[in-house]
């Protein structure tokens, strides 16, 4: 390894998660709080792998009802129509608004699935002590941190529809059970990305050199 590459851990330093102050690891053992900002200190996020796995599994389980159950139930002129996420996308494609179809597809189907697959890949790569392209894997991690929030679009659409279409006489839209599961997927994957510590990717590379 390049002699100039020194990590905080190798020098016995802990970097504060919130304010980036470097603190002596021995000091952290006796008093695990940052003297500058008061944050709880830890060399790596605690139980990072186990917690991330648990959250990934929880999200995967919620993903099934989120996609199978109806997201919205529209009552118009006496007929009820239940729409899942996918049937909403197909509806937009057929009615010619392919921009909207793309937005919903990317935000509600592609992003959550891609995010979970990336997290699973990262977890496995640390588990099997992969030394393959750690930089690209770190970039993948930053990507999952960044894009997760955009999955909330569909939840907001449902909120707005429910709020607006309360005319009763003409039509009514209710939020379907999938909305709750889908919201759970978004929230849980955000926590999952937060609990994964990308420094583990580099730790195993360094340890195996």
């Amino acid at each position, binding site marked *: 390894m390049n002699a100039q590459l020194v990590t905080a851990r190798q020098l016995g330093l802990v970097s504060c998660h919130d304010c980036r102050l470097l603190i002596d690891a021995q000091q952290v053992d006796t008093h695990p709080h940052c003297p500058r900002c008061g944050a709880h200190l830890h060399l790596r996020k605690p139980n990072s792998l186990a917690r991330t796995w648990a959250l990934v599994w929880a999200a995967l389980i919620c993903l099934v009802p989120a996609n199978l159950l109806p997201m919205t139930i529209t009552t118009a002129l006496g007929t009820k129509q239940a729409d899942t996420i996918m049937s909403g996308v197909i509806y937009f494609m057929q009615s010619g608004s392919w921009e909207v179809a793309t937005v919903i597809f990317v935000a509600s189907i592609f992003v959550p699935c891609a995010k979970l697959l990336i997290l699973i890949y990262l977890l496995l790569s640390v588990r099997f002590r992969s030394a393959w392209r750690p930089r690209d894997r770190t970039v993948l991690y930053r990507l999952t941190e960044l894009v997760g929030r955009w999955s909330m679009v569909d939840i907001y659409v449902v909120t707005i529809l429910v709020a*607006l279409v309360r005319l009763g006489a003409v039509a009514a839209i209710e939020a379907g059970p999938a*909305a709750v599961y889908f919201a759970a997927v978004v929230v849980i994957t955000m926590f999952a990305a937060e609990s994964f510590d990308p420094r583990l990717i580099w730790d195993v590379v360094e340890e195996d050199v």
Partner: protein
Amino acid sequence: MSSHSTSRHRYPQDRLPERATPADAAICASGHRTDPLLIACPNCDLLHRLAPQGDATLLCFRCGAVLYRDKPNSIERGLALTLTALILFVLSNSFPFLAMKSGGLVQETILLTGIRELWNEGMQGLAFLVLLTCVLVPLAQMLGLLYILAPLYGGRPPARHAGRVFRLVQEVAPWGMMEVFLIGVLVALVKLGHMATIVPGVSVFSFAVLIFIMAAAYSSLDPPLLWDRLDLRR
């Protein structure tokens, strides 16, 4: 980037980070472990040294994470943008963002009534999530920034617990999702377009501006400078 040397609120010594050298390692090992010139990459733990000159965005040279970004006049800009955002926020939540005309009826909605409808429908969890991400978190961020920046702008010592408030502001940031909400409004516009006439209200526009102002306010902050000022040990 010539105005830096003259600006009032500069990070102490115009620090440009570069890689830590073995000499730094020796310094650290000899006991100066909390050398303020050293920072560790949050994504890969690699140590970098902040050098005393230059304008900069420094990326970790091993994993590419942003380690440091030069933010001129961060306190003035941050405060001005936060105040603007707060005014826009009040506007956005007082006026309807969409009106729907169908038959002879006009249905208007402001954000909070939408949340109330969800709540009344028995979806309290969802209602709370929308309230949290579109109202409470952005509001908390703005008020928090105001609390931190106002005394610093006036040249006074930081407010009580300002460090803790800043930590909270940073921690809740991922949960503020106003820009995502705006996309939701646009999608809803298209979706309802075939059922009725939908008219975007004042609030959609103030919301759109608010999102940019909020993003600008947040990115004008200079966390290393703020942490230097808000140090709990002082």
